[in-house]
């Protein structure tokens, strides 16, 4: 006999049935019934200090474990605080289920206290969303939400639950499976298309594999490696694809795109065949579209048919799951001992384009060596989580990623404030693993309140702040393309500074805040590093500390990220280094 349960009980039981272990959530008026049931449940519940922190943490948890992240927020402001996190997850295809409380059904549409139309607001930034209208539907909707979030091309799903729905009692039964008439992702690639692709690969003299985050989501790294090795195809990855292919391999070209490596961008520009796998030809990847890969035919493998042909015309589209398709493809490609352009690629590689001085010009730290030090100290095994900006690009360029899910970053949306809470989620999902947050001094302050979450849960994330006292990436664009007019990018600037100033100097005011004092206020150990020789010992102390640790690294203030494809430029027109004056 089925037992009668309240909506809140159904919620808790349904989550258990979905195998959920960890919930990131922030309570409030309309989710009180759920929180009352959570009080007696076995879930690990992490309380962030802002709903945005909660959803980014759930996102980091999901990206690093491959499980679906779960976040709870209350109605109104709680729900709207999830918006950036939903958009971030949607852009990078992260499986999340966000539950929001809602005002009771009879008050919907009356502008009740803490009412916001979150299903309306989140429509374009979720894979799907639901407003639960009857308690009888709740279990089925939760089942559907997890199914949609985690299958096909994953993405966030929001479930909005009015408070009365949580309190009403109905009979509970959880469906084993759901059948959604309008949602049937196609997993199996068309055999004929696969055959055509294999033929093209076998004929190609200058092939390149261009791998995106889809390879990681699909769990297809070893199939990708097999293809690359069997047919001797060099591999470049996107930002979100870092880790899909071992960068220590001879066949790795590193990242492509705006701040990609010379070898990757030149190889794409001169290839006769591009095999694009689990990626979407983002504008930061392609540069000027008309001049992208002009000499190449393109095979595009992706599970989302809408990505095929969206920005670039495709010669051989294969829609389906990357892993299965690569497995089939590997059976059909012929083994090669080398390809027609290995020596050409080696020439580009030898240019070693990543420019970062050993020591900054003004004696301050240089960012590249700090990241290489982290790589060497952790033997390349750490999770690297980033915020957004210059440090994010350095993190992409200077660490050698070897495993999928190792590099966690907001790629599509470029969300400042993502990294720190995400790193906490990564640590929650991977308790024993070393987790490094690489942050800018600007981004870190966008969710700095989560220091409390790190401290209270003793999450041993090592926070490394690349402190240049500027919003560095924006400043770089101002320097390069806007006559060095540093409009609102100096973080040392105070009200009594001259109205226009583009020359950082000795007399500039001190940076606010002093990060190590902030960390101390939360009971987190911290040090400030100014000398290159202090970097390694400080990192060793951080790693030895069982709790969280913050390193405030004062880096060269006007260091730039190179190479750079100027906005609107072609991939082969990279700016390789600073123009000397």
């Amino acid at each position, binding site marked *: 006999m089925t037992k009668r349960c309240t909506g809140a009980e159904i919620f808790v039981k349904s989550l258990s049935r979905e195998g959920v272990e960890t919930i990131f959530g922030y309570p409030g008026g309309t989710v009180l019934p759920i929180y009352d049931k959570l009080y007696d449940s076995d879930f690990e519940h992490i309380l962030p200090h802002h709903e945005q922190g909660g959803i980014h943490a759930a996102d980091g948890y999901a990206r690093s474990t491959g499980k679906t992240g779960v976040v709870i927020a209350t109605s109104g402001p709680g729900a709207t605080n999830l918006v950036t996190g939903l958009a971030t997850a949607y852009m990078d295809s992260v499986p999340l289920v966000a539950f929001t409380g809602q005002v009771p059904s009879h008050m919907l549409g009356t502008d009740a206290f803490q009412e916001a139309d979150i*299903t*309306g607001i989140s*429509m*374009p930034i979720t*894979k*799907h969303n639901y*407003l639960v209208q009857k308690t009888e539907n709740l279990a089925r909707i939760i089942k559907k939400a997890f199914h*949609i979030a985690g299958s096909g091309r994953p993405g966030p799903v929001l479930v909005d639950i009015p408070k009365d729905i949580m309190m009403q009692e109905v009979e509970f039964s959880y469906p084993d499976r759901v059948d*959604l*008439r*309008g*949602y049937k992702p196609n997993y199996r690639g068309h055999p004929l298309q696969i055959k055509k692709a294999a033929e093209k690969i076998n004929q190609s003299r200058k092939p390149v594999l261009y791998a995106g985050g889809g390879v990681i989501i699909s769990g297809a790294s070893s199939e990708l490696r097999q293809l690359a090795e069997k047919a001797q195809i060099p591999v470049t990855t996107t930002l979100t694809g870092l880790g899909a292919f071992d960068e220590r391999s001879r066949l790795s070209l590193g990242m492509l795109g705006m701040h990609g490596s010379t070898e990757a961008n030149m190889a794409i520009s001169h290839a006769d065949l591009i095999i694009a796998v689990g990626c979407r030809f983002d504008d930061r990847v392609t540069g000027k579209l008309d001049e992208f890969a002009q000499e190449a035919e393109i095979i595009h493998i992706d599970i*989302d*048919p*809408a990505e*095929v*042909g*969206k920005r670039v015309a495709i010669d051989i589209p294969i829609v389906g799951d990357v892993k299965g398709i690569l497995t089939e493809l590997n059976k059909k490609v012929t083994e090669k001992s080398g390809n027609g352009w290995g020596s050409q690629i080696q020439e580009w590689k030898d240019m070693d384009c990543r420019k970062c001085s050993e020591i900054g010009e003004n004696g301050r730290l240089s960012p590249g060596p700090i990241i290489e030090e982290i790589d060497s100290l952790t033997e390349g095994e750490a999770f690297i989580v980033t915020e957004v900006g210059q440090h994010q690009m350095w993190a992409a360029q200077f660490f050698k990623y070897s495993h999928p899910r190792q590099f966690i970053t907001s790629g599509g949306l470029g969300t400042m404030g993502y990294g720190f809470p995400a790193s906490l989620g990564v640590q929650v999902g991977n308790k024993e693993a070393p987790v490094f947050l690489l942050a800018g001094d600007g981004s870190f302050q966008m969710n700095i309140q989560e220091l409390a979450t790190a401290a209270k849960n003793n999450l041993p994330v090592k926070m490394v702040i690349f402190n240049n006292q500027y919003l560095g990436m924006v400043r770089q664009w101002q320097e390069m393309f806007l006559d060095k007019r540093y409009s609102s990018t100096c973080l040392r600037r105070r009200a009594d500074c001259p109205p226009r100033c583009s020359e950082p100097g000795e007399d500039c005011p001190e940076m606010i805040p002093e990060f190590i004092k902030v960390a101390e206020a939360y009971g987190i150990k911290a040090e400030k590093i100014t000398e290159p020789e202090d970097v390694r010992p400080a990192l060793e102390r951080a790693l030895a500390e069982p709790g969280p640790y913050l390193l405030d690294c004062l880096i060269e203030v006007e260091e730039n990220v190179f190479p750079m494809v100027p906005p609107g430029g072609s991939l082969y027109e990279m700016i390789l280094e600073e123009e000397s004056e």
Partner: protein
Amino acid sequence: MKHTVAVQVANESGVLARIASLFSRRGFNIESLSVGQTEKEDVSRITLVVCGSQRVLEQLEKQLNKLIVVYKVSNITNDPAVSRSMAFIKVRADYSTRSEIIQIVDVFRGEIVDVANDSVMVEITGDEGKINAMEELLEPYGIIELVRTGKIAMTRGKK
């Protein structure tokens, strides 16, 4: 180029909002849209007339298919199909012009559905061209108000 697209969707609240939001967000240009229930209670059908190149249309179909509430998208532009829209036209008419107007309406197999002292209301059903022609002919008398539905369409024969 104009395309006619038939979309089967779930008959539930918020579906139209999802579709409208998709169009505005992705910059698709809708010329007309009509929606109503079908022979199945849980399915509604939307008939869209959209402008754009073949490539734009392909992307539109794919994006529509991504919506969970969308069951089926068919481009019926080149299929043999019957399509109609309807219009009400309120036109100035006094004793001297009324009979002329009635004649024109008769030729077009329209109907006069309301008569007032100084105006008549005409109902006309047909394809776009027919309604445009009717409008043009009534124009000189002075059109007071005009409302037209979106197009609905169905392919001929089986299917």
